[in-house]
């Protein structure tokens, strides 16, 4: 920007600048044709620009296109009138040239200022673009960091929740396993005592020559009691061991993280076949209404999904004391799979409903249910990114709704 130097167009132009050589010749010729023979054009420094004829005893008129003279027209006294006229048109010519010079110089200056300004803007633009690029990259890294943070904290949260439920689970296991283990070990102790008695009896029997019932020790009735009680105890222990085995197998399902078993499956396809056998065994007292639409295939562990449905249907069966209806529905809702199991059984009160998902919470008689069905079902749904909800009214029935997002690509879970 021109803020310290004077603008070119504001300078004081000299006569030489305003009177180019070509014009000088023409002006000189014109003046001769007007009749002047003896004249001179000089600038303020005395430099001669035009000279005609002998140059002595000349008078002069100032040439001042602006205010102060920038040169003089010298002439002889007899040419005074002509010289005055010539001064007028030369001055006019100088002014025209002056305006022209000012216009071209201001034009040149503004063009170059505009150009310089554009260059500056362009540089700034490039710089800001560069900054934007860097910022963008930094932002991307930040976002990735944040995403990782969120993922980490989510995982931590998940782990914490898992730990909490494992704690809860452990307490349940302790209770559920201790019980059968207590009577199994009690039975085994008694069994051991019984064995000693049987051994004694047997040895007595073997040592008696007559091979007949010994007269001392156990009487026959006693040994008969031992044998029948032994049988009962063993049976009881087998039942107890079965219960423990059942708990352990349920626990295995409870710890489902095996995403590698997932495949792209349409859940509706084998649903009827999978549940048919189970359903058939209750056909006499329960009416099953299945309303199964074709579903979009989704990446899932279909064994787990069927297991979950089986759990839900099984719960419904248990909720119906005598006769009733169970509705099973599969449908697509926008991009989600909706699975509904609805019964008109006993339903649950508020307290029961609140605890329904808790591990080892069961309304059934001891030995009939472990109380992991809904817990496992919920975990299966969760591991597929879905939600499970229960609506229930006491004595009216229960509806369980499972919503699963359709996953079209195999992703790590």
């Amino acid at each position, binding site marked *: *920007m021109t*803020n310290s130097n004077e603008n070119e167009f504001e300078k004081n132009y000299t006569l030489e600048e305003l009177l180019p050589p070509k014009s000088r010749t023409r002006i000189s010729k014109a003046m001769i044709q007007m009749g002047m023979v003896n004249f001179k054009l000089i600038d303020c420094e005395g430099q001669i620009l035009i000279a005609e004829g002998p140059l002595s005893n000349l008078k002069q008129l100032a040439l001042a296109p602006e205010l102060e003279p920038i040169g003089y027209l010298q002439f002889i006294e007899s040419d005074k009138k002509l010289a005055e006229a010539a001064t007028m048109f030369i001055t006019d010519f100088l002014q025209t040239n002056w305006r022209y010079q000012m216009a071209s110089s201001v034009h040149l200056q*503004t063009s170059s200022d505009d150009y310089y300004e554009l260059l500056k803007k362009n540089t700034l633009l490039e710089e800001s673009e560069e900054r934007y690029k860097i910022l963008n990259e930094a932002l991307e890294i930040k976002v990735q960091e944040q995403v990782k943070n969120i993922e980490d904290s989510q995982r931590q949260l998940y782990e914490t929740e898992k730990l909490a439920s494992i704690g809860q689970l452990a307490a349940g296991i302790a209770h559920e396993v201790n019980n059968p283990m207590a009577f199994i070990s009690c039975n085994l102790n008694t069994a051991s005592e019984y064995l000693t008695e049987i051994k004694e009896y047997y040895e007595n029997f073997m040592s008696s020559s007559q091979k007949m019932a010994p007269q001392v020790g156990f009487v026959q009735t006693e040994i008969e009691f031992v044998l029948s009680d032994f049988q009962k105890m063993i049976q009881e222990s087998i039942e107890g061991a079965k219960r423990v085995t059942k708990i352990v197998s349920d626990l295995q399902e409870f710890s489902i993280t095996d995403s590698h078993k997932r495949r792209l499956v349409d859940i509706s396809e084998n649903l009827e076949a999978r549940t048919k056998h189970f359903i058939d065994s209750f056909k006499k007292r329960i009416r099953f209404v299945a309303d199964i639409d074709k579903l979009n295939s989704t990446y899932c562990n279909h064994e787990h999904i069927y297991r979950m449905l089986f759990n839900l249907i099984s719960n419904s069966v248990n909720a119906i004391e005598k006769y009733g209806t169970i509705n099973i529905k599969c449908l697509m809702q926008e991009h989600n799979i909706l699975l509904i199991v609805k019964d008109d059984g006993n339903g649950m009160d508020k307290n029961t409903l609140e605890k329904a998902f808790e591990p080892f919470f069961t309304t059934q008689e001891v030995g009939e249910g472990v109380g992991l069905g809904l817990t496992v079902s919920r975990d299966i749904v969760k591991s597929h990114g879905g939600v499970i909800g229960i609506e229930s009214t006491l004595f009216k029935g229960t509806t369980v709704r499972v919503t699963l997002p359709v996953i079209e690509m195999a992703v790590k879970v």
Partner: protein
Amino acid sequence: MASWDKERKILTLKIVFYGPAMSGKTTNLTVLHDLLNPELKGDLQILETKNDRTLFFDLLPLGIKLADGTLIKLKLYTVPGQVIHNTTRKAVISRADGIIFVADSQNNQSNNNGSSFDNMIENVGLVGLNIQKLPVVVQFNKRDLENIVSSHQLERRWKKTPWKLFYATAINHEGVIETFKALLELVYPTIGDEFASKKELGISKEDFVKLLVGEVDGYK
């Protein structure tokens, strides 16, 4: 910023008529050319116009000679008012010694006046001048028209600014010289500041204004 040509003893001062397009800057200059009567008065140089709109600038040179032979040359410039000619405006106001802001009094021109005034302040800064110290007066022109903002309202609007308001109808020669004289009075002391060390200005403020305006017919 006045420039001093030591060899030729010429002190050049620059006054700029600023303002929105069509507010009457060139008319102000024409009227000053017609009315003023200083010792030296050049021709009004109208550089280039397109449909009566200034493309570059207009220039009116005035001058007075002091007893010691110094020539005080006053160059009055107008700027092109149209928004697109901003670079030219910047070039013209660089090193200005004073600015007369010519505003259009019409109601519908308030916005144009405002943005032109803001543009002037911005450009003053860009060319390295200090708006706090630069002599500026404001002239509201075209007072003869209907639908103009009342002087009462204008005074209320401008009350808190440091700039003096003047009213003019330039085409009827009214108010032009008053505005000009007011600016000369503001400019005079700044010349002293600039040149105190280099040159004692051998003229009083009253004479400075009086000589530059000269004997004006029908003007008190």
